[in-house]
């Protein structure tokens, strides 16, 4: 019997529940609790994929998230999702997985030809080849290389269900990362001290390394039981901490188990944003590989992974394995396999016989001391290995798996991200990093300690230290099973690479060999970060967790420097792949952004309005579903001929109160407000600090120290921020209170020649005659019995009254106005009609107040006050802002009245059509004037009034001769608004 197989009971699998799944079209069976990797091994599969560049056959190398090779595409109802790790993907009924980066099949991959051409495809080959002809790179070479390289395929939007993921905010006194012996012991101490603890473990079960040693079962179970009884401790499994962001903020990705997923409607991932006062990093030390020729053949696996497959899933990585290790811890795999009945062919150890080797020999396992593996035979699976030892002839050993261990590399990513400095630890031949004391501590294997008992003791001590730092009384030591003692071990001897002919990989995911690293060094990429970017070593999903340090060691040897000096690649978030869906959380589709609804939204909807998004607002565009201009023109015509009513509640409204309110407004606005009488409104313009126009609107004086300021809809939030900033940072001596009252007041404009009659009917207590309530008058009044405010202001150019009432009363007042207007055939009008009316009249809006226009450009120069300071005063005086050739506001009309205008049409001289003189900002068919009318920004526009230009829209292939006219195309004397 050869190859991997299930040989017993696993800690995490349920032998009574069989699960059917497919891999590359073959129907296979696993057990509940299996990962795809363990299930494939249980089915005797060693070959699971092809490599990134050389398309070499690849198998399963690890048993966790550090896996570089066993990436698969998962095909579900929503499509094909690439790059799922077989080593963490749980097997579920009906799972369909396919291998990646091969054609036509996994066994026979045409592009494995690349492997034979490998000497022509070293690291960075594409920087030096494919140089000519220049045009061919983008059109031929790059597409070909991209097609040949890569991993999975994305063929559909993944996770297209109602709530693909969610984001949860967590808070804790201490975040403990990792639930091995150190993390569990620390969490218990911290929880016993009364601290809020969040224990995050990326595995499906708590325990870490204790899951792999049956002697630790009792300790683990008792500790977990005590933790469960501590109310302030929360243990999260399947939760990987992805990054540390400073100020105690961490990101963690929780993958939901089946039950939790069903409860949350099929949710798959949950991004947790954790805020903690301290962190305890007990995230262990991943095992690392050894670089030697053939270290990527399917069947070559890390020894620790083989132990996990055996203990957790009852799966042997091979029935006749050879081990190649340089440390005593890895012998546990040989002993466990032998104990489970597997015939271990040999353990190859470059060291002399040590304590673990002696134990192995006592168990009947052959140990070849002082030897190294120099070659692996077999292409789609390990068949034999060649072993060399100084002074002895090479030996060929028959094997179906090669289990390797080059030592352990403490996980330093999070500590480094927190600012911890790397420290070289000679004893383990690796770097460690402690977070700064103010951020937390590291413990256990992450601190470079070996042995579960040592780690547990260290974790407990770190927990006590953190508890003391956080001002908690130290709890008594926990009673219960004493942890099993660590076995004495012979020190590790560093072994990074066995140099022998053939490809020796340091990064299996990116097909980077030790020779590639030396090439980078020869090419001058001597810094480890430069080497990374030249070779792509330590990139992609595994981030070089099992080979990054080996690559550093190869570089160090090439440079003739100690590895401690060369360092290791700086880790950045994310430590593991994160689906975009998890980052987006629940704020997608209908929840992508808030919708602001008008107080009368339901009325508008019932009345057949077509809505338009303006900022966050949903505004009625026109009360029709038709896409023609006719309904718009009917609404506008009603205003010009009789009366219309429109909802202008979206206007920004800011309540300004205080003894210095008038002084403040004089500073905010470019024109004067301190002279405004109570009961009157005034149009005002605001400038930015750079002198450009910022916003406009009317401001009313409701009392001697009480104003109501209105802004454009688009700028309402920015205007409030502008006011708050200047009040708090610039006008700190002024006693003024600003309150955003936009949502408080619903506001309607009743406009048209019959507006007075309609308004009078709903405001019986107010004399609306021209003498008593002239243009720009303001009053408080009962409106349809509701306390409100009346403003005689107009944006349409017609006689108009704006009625403001508390939003809750909006339906009552709106309905009363409609009733009052019925004799005059009152019509509600939407944003399109409002635009038609204001364009005819020459009123500007955000199309013209676009951030690039000055007061002079829009004809407001005379509004700038001559004395007193205001925002933008100095820079508005720049000659450039009043230069006669600037784009200035004008009106435009087609000479041929049957021609249409378009927003964005360029204005050109007939004799120089390639040179734009300006453009149309707003246009509409007119109800009062014949044909279309528009507003435009035109170079030296005012001087061109009365001339003709051409309006052209090349993308519509349209050209129209235009008259340049005054922007005030209708009633320039304002007789209508004062009627």
């Amino acid at each position, binding site marked *: 019997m050869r190859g991997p197989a299930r040989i017993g009971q696993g800690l995490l699998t349920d032998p009574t529940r069989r699960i059917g799944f497919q891999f590359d079209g073959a129907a296979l069976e696993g057990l509940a609790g299996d990962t795809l990797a363990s299930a494939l091994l249980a089915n005797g599969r060693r070959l699971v994929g092809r490599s990134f560049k050389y398309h070499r056959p690849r198998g399963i190398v690890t048993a966790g998230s550090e896996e570089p090779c066993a990436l698969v595409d998962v095909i579900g109802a929503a499509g094909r999702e690439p790059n799922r790790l077989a080593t963490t993907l749980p097997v579920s009924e009906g799972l369909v997985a396919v291998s990646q980066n091969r054609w036509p099949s996994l066994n026979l991959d045409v592009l494995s030809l690349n492997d034979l051409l490998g000497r022509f495809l070293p690291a960075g080959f594409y920087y030096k080849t494919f140089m000519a002809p220049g045009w061919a790179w983008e059109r031929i070479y790059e597409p070909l290389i991209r097609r040949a390289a890569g991993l999975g395929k994305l063929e559909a939007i993944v996770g297209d269900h109602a*709530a693909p993921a*969610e*984001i*949860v*905010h*967590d*808070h804790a006194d201490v975040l403990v990362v990792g639930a091995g012996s150190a993390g569990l012991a620390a969490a218990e101490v911290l929880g016993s001290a009364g601290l*809020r603890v969040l224990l995050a473990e990326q595995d499906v079960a708590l325990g870490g390394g204790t899951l792999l040693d049956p002697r630790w079962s009792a300790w683990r179970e008792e500790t977990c039981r005590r933790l469960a009884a501590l109310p302030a401790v929360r243990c999260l499994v399947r939760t990987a901490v992805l990054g540390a962001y400073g100020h105690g903020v961490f990101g963690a990705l929780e993958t939901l188990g089946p039950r939790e997923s069903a*409860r*949350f*409607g099929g949710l798959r991932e949950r991004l947790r*944003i954790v*805020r903690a006062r301290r962190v305890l990093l007990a995230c262990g030390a991943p095992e690392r590989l050894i670089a030697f020729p053939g270290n990527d053949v399917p069947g070559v696996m890390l020894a620790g992974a083989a132990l996990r497959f055996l203990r957790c899933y009852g799966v042997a990585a091979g029935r006749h394995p050879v081990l190649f290790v340089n440390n005593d811890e890895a012998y546990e795999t040989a002993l466990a396999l032998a104990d489970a009945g597997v015939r271990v062919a040999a353990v190859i150890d470059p060291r002399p016989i040590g304590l673990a080797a002696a134990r192995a020999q006592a168990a009947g396992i052959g140990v070849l001391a002082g030897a190294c593996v120099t070659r692996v035979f077999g292409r789609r699976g390990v068949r034999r290995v060649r072993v060399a030892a100084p002074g002895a002839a090479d030996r060929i050993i028959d094997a179906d798996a090669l289990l390797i261990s080059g030592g352990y590399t403490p996980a330093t990513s999070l500590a480094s991200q927190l600012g911890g400095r790397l420290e070289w630890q000679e004893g383990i031949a690796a770097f460690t990093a402690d977070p700064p004391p103010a951020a937390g501590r590291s413990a256990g294997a992450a601190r470079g300690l070996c042995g579960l008992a040592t780690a547990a003791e260290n974790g407990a001590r770190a927990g006590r230290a953190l508890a003391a730092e956080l001002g908690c009384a130290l709890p008594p030591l926990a009673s219960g099973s004493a942890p099993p003692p660590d076995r004495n071990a012979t020190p590790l001897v560093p072994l990074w690479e066995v140099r022998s002919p053939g490809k020796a990989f340091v990064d299996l995911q990116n097909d980077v060999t030790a020779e590639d690293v030396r090439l980078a060094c020869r090419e001058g990429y001597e810094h480890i970060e430069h080497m990374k970017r030249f070779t792509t070593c330590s990139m992609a999903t595994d981030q070089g967790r099992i080979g990054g340090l080996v690559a550093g060691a190869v570089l160090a040897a090439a440079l003739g420097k100690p590895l401690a000096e060369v360092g290791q690649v700086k880790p950045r978030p994310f430590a593991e792949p994160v689906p975009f869906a998890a980052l987006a959380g*629940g*704020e997608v589709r*209908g*929840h992508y*952004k*808030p*919708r*602001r*609804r*008008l*107080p009368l939204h339901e009325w508008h909807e019932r009345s057949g309005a077509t809505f338009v998004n303006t900022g*966050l*607002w949903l505004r009625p565009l026109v009360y029709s579903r038709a896409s023609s201009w006719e309904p718009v023109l009917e609404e506008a015509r009603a205003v010009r001929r009789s009366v219309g009513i429109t909802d202008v509640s979206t206007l920004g409204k800011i*309540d300004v*109160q*205080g*003894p210095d309110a008038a002084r403040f407004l004089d500073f905010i606005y470019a024109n004067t407000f301190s002279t405004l009488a109570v009961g009157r409104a005034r149009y005002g313009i605001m400038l930015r600090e750079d002198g450009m126009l910022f916003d406009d609107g009317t401001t009313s004086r409701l009392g001697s*120290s009480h104003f109501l300021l209105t802004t454009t809809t688009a700028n309402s939030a920015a205007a409030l921020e502008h006011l708050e900033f200047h009040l708090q940072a610039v006008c700190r001596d002024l*006693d003024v*209170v600003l*309150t*955003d*009252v*936009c*949502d*408080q*007041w*619903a506001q309607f404009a009743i406009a048209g020649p019959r507006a007075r009659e309609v308004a009078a009917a709903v405001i019986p207590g107010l004399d609306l005659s021209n003498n008593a309530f002239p243009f720009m008058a303001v009053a408080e009044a009962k409106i349809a019995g*509701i*306390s409100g405010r009346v403003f005689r202001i107009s944006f349409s150019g017609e006689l108009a009254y704006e009625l403001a*009432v*508390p*939003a*809750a*009363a909006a339906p009552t007042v709106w309905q009363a106005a409609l009733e009052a207007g019925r004799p005059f055939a009152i019509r509600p009008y939407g944003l399109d009609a409002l635009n038609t009316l204001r364009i005819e009249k020459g009123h500007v809006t955000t199309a013209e107040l676009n951030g690039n226009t000055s007061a002079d450009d829009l004809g407001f120069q005379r509004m700038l006050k001559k004395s007193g300071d205001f925002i933008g005063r100095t820079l508005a005086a720049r000659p450039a802002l009043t230069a006669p050739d600037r784009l200035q506001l004008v009106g435009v009309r087609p000479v041929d009245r049957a021609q249409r205008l378009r927003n964005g049409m360029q204005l050109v001289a007939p004799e120089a059509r390639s040179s734009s003189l300006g453009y149309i900002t707003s246009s509409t068919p007119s109800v009062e004037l014949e044909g279309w009318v528009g507003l435009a920004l035109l170079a030296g526009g005012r001087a061109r009034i009365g001339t003709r230009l051409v309006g052209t829209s090349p993308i519509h292939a349209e050209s129209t001769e235009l008259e340049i006219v005054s922007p005030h195309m209708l009633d320039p004397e304002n007789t209508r608004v004062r009627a």
Partner: protein
Amino acid sequence: MSAPETGIALAPCPADLVELVAFRERAGDLGQLAAERGVRLPGPGELVAGPEGLTLSVRPGRWLLLSRPVAAGESARRWAEASRGRCAVADLSSAVAAFLLRGPAVGEMLARACRLDLEPRAFPVGRAAATIMVQVPAILARLTPGMLLLTPATTALHLREWLVQASRPFGLALASDATVSELCKESST
């Protein structure tokens, strides 16, 4: 009005809402005005229940008063008349929607949108804070009966829809109106 034993109960909380803001030089005058009207002004980040209603502060020198709804603008008018210029008074009754969330899972549900630490030890009864939830401004205040949530009226439906969806996995009950009087009564017992 009782809290559910499991899950979450969501109830609208109709109320008149008045904002009082002290003018810089007249903070003492506002304190005096409040005392005259039997209202205690809590410190920033706090909420108190009194006979007039609930009073909370999430910005220094500003207080929100929630009281039983009367005619539109009436509560604010009474305060404005009484203040005689001693402070700024603004009626926000229509500007803000109020909800009461009750039940053991409220904190867990709100953690899906709220960055604040709402664990009862960190955010006990009487604590109030302004925050952002699902891109919408919100004020949260813990009362004895549950969590009071205030949010701008025009985006309240957006937030409510989110609350309903987020509450479902925990078990959601849509409850009848929670009145300010009941909240005050339960908070003072």
